Protein backbone atom coordinates (compact mmCIF):
# COMPACT_ATOMS: atom_id res chain seq x y z
CA UNK A 1 0.00 0.00 0.00
CA UNK A 2 1.22 3.46 -0.85
CA UNK A 3 2.65 5.44 2.03
CA UNK A 4 0.98 8.74 2.65
CA UNK A 5 3.00 11.89 2.28
CA UNK A 6 3.01 13.82 5.54
CA UNK A 7 3.92 17.46 5.79
CA UNK A 8 6.49 16.86 8.54
CA UNK A 9 8.33 14.23 6.50
CA UNK A 10 8.92 16.30 3.39
CA UNK A 11 12.09 18.39 3.37
CA UNK A 12 12.63 21.54 1.35
CA UNK A 13 14.33 20.74 -1.97
CA UNK A 14 12.86 17.21 -1.99
CA UNK A 15 12.30 15.91 -5.50
CA UNK A 16 8.88 15.13 -6.89
CA UNK A 17 9.30 11.70 -8.56
CA UNK A 18 9.86 12.23 -12.27
CA UNK A 19 7.26 11.23 -14.85
CA UNK A 20 8.38 10.24 -18.34
CA UNK A 21 6.18 10.70 -21.39
CA UNK A 22 6.52 10.40 -25.14
CA UNK A 23 3.37 11.77 -26.73
CA UNK A 24 2.40 10.38 -30.13
CA UNK A 25 0.32 12.06 -32.84
CA UNK A 26 -2.45 9.62 -31.88
CA UNK A 27 -2.32 11.00 -28.36
CA UNK A 28 -2.65 14.55 -29.71
CA UNK A 29 -5.81 13.53 -31.53
CA UNK A 30 -7.13 11.86 -28.36
CA UNK A 31 -6.39 15.08 -26.48
CA UNK A 32 -8.10 17.18 -29.13
CA UNK A 33 -11.24 15.08 -28.73
CA UNK A 34 -11.10 14.95 -24.93
CA UNK A 35 -10.37 18.64 -24.47
CA UNK A 36 -12.35 20.13 -27.36
CA UNK A 37 -9.19 21.89 -28.58
CA UNK A 38 -9.39 21.33 -32.35
CA UNK A 39 -6.79 23.88 -33.39
CA UNK A 40 -5.24 22.20 -36.48
CA UNK A 41 -1.58 22.98 -35.65
CA UNK A 42 -1.82 19.94 -33.36
CA UNK A 43 -2.84 17.37 -36.00
CA UNK A 44 -2.56 18.87 -39.53
CA UNK A 45 1.07 19.02 -40.63
CA UNK A 46 0.40 21.17 -43.74
CA UNK A 47 -1.60 23.66 -41.70
CA UNK A 48 1.18 23.84 -39.08
CA UNK A 49 3.91 24.31 -41.70
CA UNK A 50 1.96 27.07 -43.46
CA UNK A 51 2.14 28.93 -40.15
CA UNK A 52 5.89 28.61 -39.89
CA UNK A 53 6.06 25.61 -37.58
CA UNK A 54 8.32 22.64 -38.39
CA UNK A 55 5.37 20.27 -37.94
CA UNK A 56 2.50 19.55 -35.56
CA UNK A 57 3.18 20.51 -31.95
CA UNK A 58 2.01 19.07 -28.65
CA UNK A 59 -0.82 20.98 -26.96
CA UNK A 60 0.52 23.02 -24.05
CA UNK A 61 -2.39 21.92 -21.91
CA UNK A 62 -1.63 18.24 -22.56
CA UNK A 63 1.87 18.82 -21.22
CA UNK A 64 0.22 20.61 -18.29
CA UNK A 65 -1.88 17.47 -17.83
CA UNK A 66 1.36 15.47 -17.57
CA UNK A 67 2.52 17.78 -14.77
CA UNK A 68 -0.85 17.30 -13.07
CA UNK A 69 -0.39 13.53 -13.31
CA UNK A 70 3.11 13.77 -11.86
CA UNK A 71 1.68 15.64 -8.86
CA UNK A 72 -1.33 13.37 -8.26
CA UNK A 73 0.82 10.24 -8.64
CA UNK A 74 3.05 11.62 -5.91
CA UNK A 75 0.29 12.86 -3.61
CA UNK A 76 -1.80 9.70 -3.53
CA UNK A 77 -5.28 9.77 -2.04
CA UNK A 78 -4.78 12.25 0.76
CA UNK A 79 -3.00 15.10 -0.88
CA UNK A 80 -4.77 17.58 -3.11
CA UNK A 81 -3.41 19.61 -5.97
CA UNK A 82 -4.79 23.08 -5.27
CA UNK A 83 -3.02 25.21 -7.82
CA UNK A 84 -0.94 24.68 -10.93
CA UNK A 85 0.56 27.32 -13.15
CA UNK A 86 2.34 26.48 -16.39
CA UNK A 87 4.24 28.81 -18.71
CA UNK A 88 4.69 27.28 -22.15
CA UNK A 89 8.17 28.49 -23.05
CA UNK A 90 9.05 26.31 -26.01
CA UNK A 91 7.29 23.74 -28.16
CA UNK A 92 7.21 20.00 -27.65
CA UNK A 93 6.94 17.74 -30.66
CA UNK A 94 5.25 14.34 -30.92
CA UNK A 95 7.61 11.37 -30.84
CA UNK A 96 10.09 13.16 -28.62
CA UNK A 97 10.60 12.14 -24.99
CA UNK A 98 9.48 14.49 -22.22
CA UNK A 99 10.66 14.45 -18.62
CA UNK A 100 8.43 16.01 -15.96
CA UNK A 101 10.13 17.02 -12.74
CA UNK A 102 9.64 19.08 -9.61
CA UNK A 103 11.16 20.17 -6.32
CA UNK A 104 9.62 21.37 -3.06
CA UNK A 105 10.41 25.06 -2.86
CA UNK A 106 8.33 26.21 0.14
CA UNK A 107 6.37 24.76 3.04
CA UNK A 108 3.74 26.74 4.89
CA UNK A 109 0.71 26.45 7.14
CA UNK A 110 -2.33 28.65 6.45
CA UNK A 111 -5.61 28.55 8.36
CA UNK A 112 -4.49 25.28 9.93
CA UNK A 113 -3.89 23.62 6.54
CA UNK A 114 -0.48 22.37 5.43
CA UNK A 115 0.82 23.33 2.01
CA UNK A 116 3.84 22.55 -0.16
CA UNK A 117 4.75 24.82 -3.02
CA UNK A 118 6.72 23.01 -5.70
CA UNK A 119 8.63 24.31 -8.66
CA UNK A 120 7.73 22.08 -11.60
CA UNK A 121 9.03 21.80 -15.13
CA UNK A 122 9.08 19.80 -18.34
CA UNK A 123 12.33 19.05 -20.16
CA UNK A 124 12.79 17.91 -23.73
CA UNK A 125 15.44 15.47 -24.93
CA UNK A 126 17.96 18.33 -25.27
CA UNK A 127 17.52 19.21 -21.59
CA UNK A 128 15.71 22.44 -22.47
CA UNK A 129 12.89 23.43 -20.11
CA UNK A 130 9.87 23.77 -22.37
CA UNK A 131 7.37 24.34 -19.55
CA UNK A 132 7.99 25.81 -16.11
CA UNK A 133 5.52 26.41 -13.36
CA UNK A 134 4.43 26.15 -9.78
CA UNK A 135 2.23 23.58 -8.05
CA UNK A 136 0.64 24.17 -4.66
CA UNK A 137 -0.53 21.05 -2.84
CA UNK A 138 -2.41 20.45 0.37
CA UNK A 139 -1.02 17.49 2.33
CA UNK A 140 -1.97 15.81 5.62
CA UNK A 141 0.07 16.54 8.73
CA UNK A 142 1.00 13.88 11.27
CA UNK A 143 0.08 16.36 13.98
CA UNK A 144 -3.48 16.49 12.64
CA UNK A 145 -4.07 12.80 11.84
CA UNK A 146 -4.87 10.11 14.42
CA UNK A 147 -2.46 7.16 14.50
CA UNK A 148 -0.20 8.75 11.90
Amino acid at each position, binding site marked *: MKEYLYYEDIALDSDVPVLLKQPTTTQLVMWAG*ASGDYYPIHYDKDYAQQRGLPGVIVHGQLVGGFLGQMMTDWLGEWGQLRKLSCSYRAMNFPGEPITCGGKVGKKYIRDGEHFLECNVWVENAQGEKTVTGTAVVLVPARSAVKNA
Partner: protein
Amino acid sequence: MTGDFPDIEELKAKIGVDWEPAVYEIEKGMIRRFAQAIGDPNPRWQDENKPGGIMAPPTFITVIGFDRIQELLTRFKATLHASTEFECYRPVKPGDILTIFTRIDRLRERQGQTGRMVFLTFETVYKNSLAELVGTCRQTIIGY
Protein backbone atom coordinates in the same frame (compact mmCIF):
# COMPACT_ATOMS: atom_id res chain seq x y z
CA MET B 1 2.56 35.20 -41.65
CA THR B 2 1.83 38.25 -43.74
CA GLY B 3 -1.30 40.20 -44.52
CA ASP B 4 -3.73 42.24 -42.50
CA PHE B 5 -3.84 41.98 -38.78
CA PRO B 6 -7.36 41.18 -37.60
CA ASP B 7 -9.57 43.83 -36.11
CA ILE B 8 -9.27 43.54 -32.36
CA GLU B 9 -11.51 46.45 -31.38
CA GLU B 10 -14.34 44.02 -30.69
CA LEU B 11 -12.06 42.11 -28.31
CA LYS B 12 -10.98 45.32 -26.59
CA ALA B 13 -14.62 46.23 -26.03
CA LYS B 14 -15.12 42.92 -24.20
CA ILE B 15 -12.34 43.40 -21.62
CA GLY B 16 -13.77 42.85 -18.16
CA VAL B 17 -17.23 41.95 -19.44
CA ASP B 18 -18.59 38.53 -18.38
CA TRP B 19 -19.81 36.35 -21.22
CA GLU B 20 -23.17 34.63 -21.03
CA PRO B 21 -22.60 31.81 -18.49
CA ALA B 22 -22.30 28.32 -20.00
CA VAL B 23 -23.52 25.13 -18.34
CA TYR B 24 -21.67 21.82 -18.66
CA GLU B 25 -22.93 18.50 -17.32
CA ILE B 26 -19.96 16.33 -16.43
CA GLU B 27 -20.22 12.73 -17.65
CA LYS B 28 -17.98 9.85 -16.64
CA GLY B 29 -17.05 9.24 -20.30
CA MET B 30 -15.64 12.80 -20.52
CA ILE B 31 -13.45 12.13 -17.48
CA ARG B 32 -12.34 8.73 -18.76
CA ARG B 33 -11.39 10.09 -22.19
CA PHE B 34 -9.53 12.97 -20.57
CA ALA B 35 -7.47 10.61 -18.35
CA GLN B 36 -6.81 8.28 -21.29
CA ALA B 37 -5.62 11.17 -23.47
CA ILE B 38 -3.05 12.09 -20.81
CA GLY B 39 -2.14 8.42 -20.44
CA ASP B 40 -2.90 8.62 -16.72
CA PRO B 41 -3.96 5.15 -15.47
CA ASN B 42 -4.80 6.27 -11.90
CA PRO B 43 -7.91 4.28 -10.79
CA ARG B 44 -9.28 7.41 -9.07
CA TRP B 45 -10.29 8.74 -12.50
CA GLN B 46 -11.75 5.50 -13.88
CA ASP B 47 -12.68 2.89 -11.26
CA GLU B 48 -16.38 3.24 -10.49
CA ASN B 49 -16.15 0.67 -7.67
CA LYS B 50 -13.77 2.79 -5.65
CA PRO B 51 -15.20 4.22 -2.43
CA GLY B 52 -16.31 7.75 -3.30
CA GLY B 53 -16.53 6.85 -6.99
CA ILE B 54 -14.78 8.53 -9.88
CA MET B 55 -13.39 12.03 -9.76
CA ALA B 56 -11.78 14.06 -12.52
CA PRO B 57 -8.04 14.82 -12.58
CA PRO B 58 -7.56 18.35 -11.22
CA THR B 59 -6.37 19.61 -14.62
CA PHE B 60 -9.76 18.64 -16.12
CA ILE B 61 -11.43 21.98 -15.40
CA THR B 62 -8.92 23.85 -17.56
CA VAL B 63 -10.48 22.41 -20.73
CA ILE B 64 -14.11 23.01 -19.76
CA GLY B 65 -15.29 25.92 -21.86
CA PHE B 66 -11.96 26.26 -23.65
CA ASP B 67 -13.88 25.73 -26.90
CA ARG B 68 -15.56 29.11 -26.38
CA ILE B 69 -12.15 30.77 -26.03
CA GLN B 70 -11.00 29.04 -29.23
CA GLU B 71 -13.99 30.39 -31.16
CA LEU B 72 -12.91 33.91 -30.35
CA LEU B 73 -9.38 33.21 -31.59
CA THR B 74 -10.24 32.07 -35.11
CA ARG B 75 -9.83 35.67 -36.30
CA PHE B 76 -6.03 35.34 -35.90
CA LYS B 77 -3.76 33.77 -38.52
CA ALA B 78 -2.07 31.77 -35.78
CA THR B 79 -2.21 31.52 -32.02
CA LEU B 80 0.09 30.07 -29.41
CA HIS B 81 -0.76 29.19 -25.85
CA ALA B 82 1.44 31.15 -23.44
CA SER B 83 0.29 30.00 -20.01
CA THR B 84 -2.37 28.29 -17.93
CA GLU B 85 -2.92 28.87 -14.24
CA PHE B 86 -5.71 27.23 -12.27
CA GLU B 87 -6.86 26.72 -8.72
CA CYS B 88 -9.27 24.01 -7.63
CA TYR B 89 -11.21 23.92 -4.41
CA ARG B 90 -13.68 21.05 -4.88
CA PRO B 91 -13.36 17.77 -6.79
CA VAL B 92 -15.31 17.43 -10.04
CA LYS B 93 -17.36 14.22 -10.32
CA PRO B 94 -19.69 12.62 -12.87
CA GLY B 95 -23.15 14.16 -12.67
CA ASP B 96 -21.85 17.55 -11.56
CA ILE B 97 -23.43 20.46 -13.35
CA LEU B 98 -20.89 23.25 -13.67
CA THR B 99 -21.72 26.79 -14.61
CA ILE B 100 -18.77 28.71 -15.96
CA PHE B 101 -18.22 32.43 -16.16
CA THR B 102 -15.55 33.65 -18.57
CA ARG B 103 -14.27 37.05 -19.55
CA ILE B 104 -11.26 38.67 -21.15
CA ASP B 105 -9.27 40.00 -18.24
CA ARG B 106 -6.36 41.61 -20.12
CA LEU B 107 -5.32 42.48 -23.64
CA ARG B 108 -1.81 43.66 -24.42
CA GLU B 109 -0.46 44.54 -27.87
CA ARG B 110 3.17 43.99 -28.78
CA GLN B 111 5.34 44.46 -31.81
CA GLY B 112 7.40 41.28 -32.23
CA GLN B 113 10.02 40.21 -34.76
CA THR B 114 7.36 38.58 -36.90
CA GLY B 115 4.96 41.50 -36.63
CA ARG B 116 2.10 42.53 -34.43
CA MET B 117 0.86 40.26 -31.71
CA VAL B 118 -1.76 40.36 -29.00
CA PHE B 119 -1.54 38.74 -25.57
CA LEU B 120 -5.03 37.85 -24.40
CA THR B 121 -5.72 36.68 -20.86
CA PHE B 122 -9.02 34.93 -20.19
CA GLU B 123 -10.36 34.38 -16.70
CA THR B 124 -12.88 31.63 -15.96
CA VAL B 125 -14.72 30.86 -12.72
CA TYR B 126 -16.38 27.46 -12.24
CA LYS B 127 -19.33 26.95 -9.88
CA ASN B 128 -21.37 23.86 -9.03
CA SER B 129 -25.15 23.58 -8.85
CA LEU B 130 -25.08 24.82 -5.25
CA ALA B 131 -23.27 27.95 -6.53
CA GLU B 132 -20.15 26.86 -4.61
CA LEU B 133 -16.78 27.80 -6.07
CA VAL B 134 -15.17 24.77 -7.74
CA GLY B 135 -12.16 26.48 -9.29
CA THR B 136 -10.74 29.31 -11.33
CA CYS B 137 -8.52 29.36 -14.40
CA ARG B 138 -6.48 31.98 -16.26
CA GLN B 139 -5.40 31.26 -19.82
CA THR B 140 -3.04 33.50 -21.75
CA ILE B 141 -2.91 33.12 -25.52
CA ILE B 142 -0.86 34.98 -28.10
CA GLY B 143 -2.61 35.90 -31.33
CA TYR B 144 -0.60 36.75 -34.50
